[in-house]
């Protein structure tokens, strides 16, 4: 049941336990308890809204920053990752295999704000060897959802 709950609410976190129970053919109380348990266990970490900021008048800039760091003895990458993710403007931090170590995504109000963060805060950390900043120009798809217009039903209206 867990898998089916997760797969469903991953796409629609707004769904109520009652509705979810109908779709899954379970009792409401069962579903509600399972969700609560998964929240407590940290499997469900939050409920977010996917916003296409471009369609609003609010200016935002998203950047992906590749960061190369020196791992620290006894702690590996964890402590440097922590120093970075504690900044509220940092959206996500991933440890990555390949040519660099950490992938940091950043949401800022403007280009200036993002570059200030990189040059003043990120690059100046002792363990950071180098950074490469990529600004996102357009989001086509995010979190599994295509951000374009909803396609129309192309089917004939009645078919056998």
């Amino acid at each position, binding site marked *: 049941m867990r898998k089916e709950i997760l797969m469903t609410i991953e796409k629609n976190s707004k769904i109520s336990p009652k509705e979810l129970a*109908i*779709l*899954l*053919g379970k009792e409401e109380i069962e579903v509600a308890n399972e969700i609560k348990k998964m929240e407590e266990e940290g499997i469900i970490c939050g409920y977010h809204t996917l916003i296409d900021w471009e369609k609003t008048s609010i200016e935002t800039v998203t950047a992906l920053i590749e960061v190369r760091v020196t791992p620290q003895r006894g702690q590996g990458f964890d402590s440097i990752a922590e120093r970075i993710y504690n900044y509220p403007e940092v959206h996500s931090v991933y440890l990555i295999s390949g040519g660099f170590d950490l992938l940091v995504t950043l949401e800022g109000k403007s280009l200036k704000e993002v570059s200030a963060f990189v040059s003043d805060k990120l690059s100046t950390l002792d363990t950071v060897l180098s950074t490469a900043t990529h600004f996102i120009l357009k989001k086509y798809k995010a979190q599994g959802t295509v951000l374009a217009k909803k396609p129309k039903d192309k*089917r004939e*209206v009645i*078919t*056998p």
Partner: protein
Amino acid sequence: MTIPLSNKIVNIKPSGIRKFFDLVSEMQDVISLGVGEPDFDTPWHIRDEGIYALEKGRTFYTSNSGLKELKQEICNYLKNSQNISYDYNSEIMVTVGGSEAIDIALRAMVNTGDEVLIPQPSYVSYYPCAILAGATPVIIDLKAENNFKLTAQEILEKITNKTKFLILPFPNNPTGSIMEKEDLEDIAKVIIEKDLYVISDEIYSELTYGKKHVSIASIKGMKERTVLINGFSKAYAMTGWRLGYACAPEPILKQMLKIHQYAIMCAPTTSQYAAIEALRHGENDVETMKTEYNHRRRFLMNAFKEMKLDCFEPFGAFYVFPCIKEFGLTSEEFATRFLKEEKVATVPGTAFGDSGEGFLRISYAYSLETLKEAMIRLNKFITKLRNEK
């Protein structure tokens, strides 16, 4: 001057669905629940394989019976899912949708006057195809109290010394009914005893909920007597690719292949390449779509329960078939008024045979949001009808 027209064709009624289609087409902002095809797009990797085939210039005829690799994949699929062993070379052919397979199976086996048992409500093409093949169709009216399953008794009641075939349309369009192993074993007994053959249309085989589809060809002694028809339209959301297949004992398939060879040549090449990809790597897509359909199915069943609308729980295809007899309207009257007054298009049960009278086919090949809105309107409509009484 008289236009030369075949009496056989002229006497065939156009599909009852067509009439409704015309009515709906004239209206605007209609929510349609009348479509018999998936709402999902063909999974991208399958489309990509079709595109790749075009890019590579694979634009020629294939052999009449289809690409060898595709027939081998079909063979593996039937082995894995149903434990039926077909020889890909002599017992499988690729067709233009399941529809072609139904037509040529009948034409390959029927002699004038042979009786074909057709359970109804069922898909609209069996009856006319049987007529065109020169058969005499004999209708078996499936009953709501049996959840629209076919019973051995119903077959026995209709058998004469002219009966040759049974068409077995499960999982069923329009009722959503499925046949389970025990049900099929009862049928198989009669078929073998009475020396009949079966044309089993299993196009919805991948879309069953909580219970796995069983093919009648997997039952002992039945592979030899069955033309198994399936395809890619419903499982992989590939309706427009027009690709299906038929598996049959070699003597039958040989004759079917002759019709196909002269009338069709071969199934679309692009589609065949895409279908290989579907069978090789499409399992997860089917699972995802099925989970989604199942959610919608449960949603509708719950909505009917809340508005106290009588409906048996179907476990296959993507249709529910609620009973509307309490309102004292015919299926067509109900569907027409529902369309005109609430702008929701459904298909009257009678489009699938007289025994569909008193029922409505509702397709759940639609998003949950659409279904939610449609159920609000249905509730409003039937509340009005109940108050009228």
